[in-house]
């Protein structure tokens, strides 16, 4: 084999494309925002197309065992970095690209103009997200986490004002400390096993001596602390609601996705290390994840109940959804995991839409333009972006109300939308997974999930009533782009509900593959590098 088939190179596109586009956008003057926006949009559309292509390839039998491997710089697997795409990775890439597209369209008329380098940071963040999904190497995962976080630091501060600075300072400090934990965990795992390649690791765990196994457990726990800080497990997630509430709407929607990366990385690493084939270490830590997830659910539910403004509510909604996912990972039998992933899809889409919606809802209330005034001063942008007034689309209030209701239904898990399907199938899978009598923790988990849904619906209804039925509601004016991005996210939630059957089929295939960690070891370590035949380039 003298070169790779072109389709094989698609694996690296989700990392390279945003990197190149983001770098190209830096020297472009901030005033040429139409050009900047178009480039960013083109990149997002291409990312979406590539992600869908990868999904079709992973699911369509293009690769053995549905796992595609790309050896970066042609180094053989345990020595070089391998990018791996399987059904779950492809799904996360599609989710990322979809939300990124919606968020970018949303920010088209306003948010990309209130500060500098919005588009570059956005692309770098996408690069970090995609890389974190694709990589099969722990240290490379750290690098992509840092890329993603560094971009998010800039984005959290986007539209620089005092509130964002205050929240951003804590957000950055916590994440810097968590990154150090990440490094400690990675180096302990390396000390114990001598490799950082996930596929290689999962093959070696069973044969470790007791000393090394002990070290590996400590390392994995420290690493998990770093992931759980991102994934906002109680008590590591106190930073989340404040950061969400103070970030600008498009950034908040991307943060929703970032929280899920922590959960995703945890799932990946944990199944590779302590899943099937881990020998004596099998199932280490899964129960702790269940307990942590339940505590997080409780924290989220109480917080949701107590919060008054939309941003904080969204933050606690994200905490609830993280808690549910963590508890599900703790239970990770195949059926439970598939339902959990379905829940992840629905809740991520709905939360992202909700984050965007909150900003529009704020416009119904008497305008507080203080934020923009400060921003303008700080950056001295000459031509001010037009105020958030655009074309007054008729029926905006109805549109906002309906979208709000749809998001609330998904977040709270009420019928008829995706949230309900997810929770129902989770309950079903949890009850079916237990052999013999259902353990008390499962009952407790289900009770907490119901309580979380109840808290969500009560507080969201309170917010909705206070906003939409309040006296003196001003007729909001929306941009067409804003309406279309929220509308499409909500429609996706509806589509997800209608196509629940085929989505579940896909997710079942994904989780079955995920639980067979031996396939990964074989595929990744068995991937042959491209052999350069000497003189082959000279041939005509």
């Amino acid at each position: 084999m003298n070169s790779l088939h072109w389709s094989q190179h698609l694996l690296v596109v989700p990392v390279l494309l945003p990197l190149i586009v983001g770098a190209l956008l830096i020297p472009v003057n901030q005033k040429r925002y139409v050009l900047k926006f178009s480039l960013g949009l083109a990149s997002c559309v291409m990312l979406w197309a590539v992600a869908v292509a990868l999904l079709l390839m992973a699911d369509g039998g293009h690769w053995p065992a549905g796992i595609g491997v790309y050896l970066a710089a042609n180094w053989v697997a345990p020595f070089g970095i391998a990018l791996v795409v399987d059904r779950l990775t492809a799904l996360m890439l599609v989710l990322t690209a979809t939300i990124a597209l919606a968020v970018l369209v949303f920010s088209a008329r306003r948010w990309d103009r209130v500060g500098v380098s919005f588009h570059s940071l956005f692309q770098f963040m996408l690069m970090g997200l995609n890389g974190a999904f694709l990589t099969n190497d722990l240290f490379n995962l750290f690098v992509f986490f840092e890329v993603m976080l560094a971009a998010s630091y800039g984005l959290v501060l986007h539209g620089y004002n005092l509130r964002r600075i205050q929240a951003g300072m804590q957000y950055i400090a916590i994440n810097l400390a968590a990154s150090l934990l990440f490094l400690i965990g990675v180096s302990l795992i390396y000390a114990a096993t001598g490799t950082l390649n996930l596929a290689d690791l999962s093959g070696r765990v069973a044969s470790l001596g007791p000393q090394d196994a002990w070290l590996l457990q400590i390392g994995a726990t420290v690493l998990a602390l770093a992931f759980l800080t991102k994934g906002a497990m109680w008590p590591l997630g106190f930073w989340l609601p404040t950061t969400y509430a103070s970030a600008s709407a498009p950034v908040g929607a991307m943060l929703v996705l970032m929280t899920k990366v922590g959960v995703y990385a945890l799932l990946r690493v944990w199944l590779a290390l302590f899943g099937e084939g881990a020998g004596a270490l099998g199932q280490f830590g899964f129960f702790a994840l269940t307990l942590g997830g339940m505590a997080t659910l409780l924290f989220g539910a109480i917080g949701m109940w107590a919060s008054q403004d939309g941003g904080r509510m969204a933050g606690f909604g994200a905490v609830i959804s993280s808690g549910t996912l963590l508890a599900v990972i703790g239970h990770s039998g195949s059926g439970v995991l598939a339902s959990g992933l379905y829940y992840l899809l629905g809740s991520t889409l709905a939360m992202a839409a909700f984050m965007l919606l909150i900003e529009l809802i704020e416009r119904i209330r008497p305008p507080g333009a203080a934020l923009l005034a400060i921003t303008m001063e700080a950056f001295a942008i000459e031509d001010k972006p037009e105020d958030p007034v655009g074309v007054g689309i008729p029926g905006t209030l109805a549109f906002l109300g309906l979208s709000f209701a749809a998001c609330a239904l998904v977040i709270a898990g009420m019928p008829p939308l995706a949230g309900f399907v997810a929770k129902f199938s989770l309950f079903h899978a949890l009850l079916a997974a237990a052999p013999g009598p259902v353990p008390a923790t499962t009952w407790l988990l289900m009770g907490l999930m119901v309580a979380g849904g109840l808290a969500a619906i009560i507080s969201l209804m309170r917010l909705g009533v206070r906003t939409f039925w309040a006296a003196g509601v001003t007729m909001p004016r929306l941009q067409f782009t804003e309406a279309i991005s929220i509308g499409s996210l909500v429609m996706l939630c509806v589509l997800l509900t209608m196509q629940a059957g085929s989505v579940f089929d896909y997710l079942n295939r994904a989780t079955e593959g995920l639980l067979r960690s031996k396939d990964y070891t074989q595929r990744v370590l068995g991937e042959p590098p491209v052999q350069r035949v000497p003189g082959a380039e000279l041939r005509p």
Partner: protein
Amino acid sequence: MELVLAISVGVVFGSGIWLILRPRTFQLITGLMLMSYAVNLFIFAMGRLWVGKPPITPTPDVDPSLFADPLPQGLVLTAIVIGFATTALYLVMMIGARGLSGSDHVDGEEPRQ
């Protein structure tokens, strides 16, 4: 040598923890930097401690026990660069916060007396 290294990593990291729990941003960033130095030393030590062994093998057929593990050294290099960049970013942010809020408290405002 292991003991000396372990104690120094511990002392540096511990000082870092104490500092990041302090209320001023300068103390916070000093603490983060100390912690990152300690972590870098720690990663370095995870390749085991060797004296006088080169990390790079000249030819393929050599006894690997004569050489130090090069990977942790590569990791440390990457970690230093990334830590440096994020620290610089945090410094910029600190200065911005100081200018905007008029306070160097980590909450962005002076605590009420």
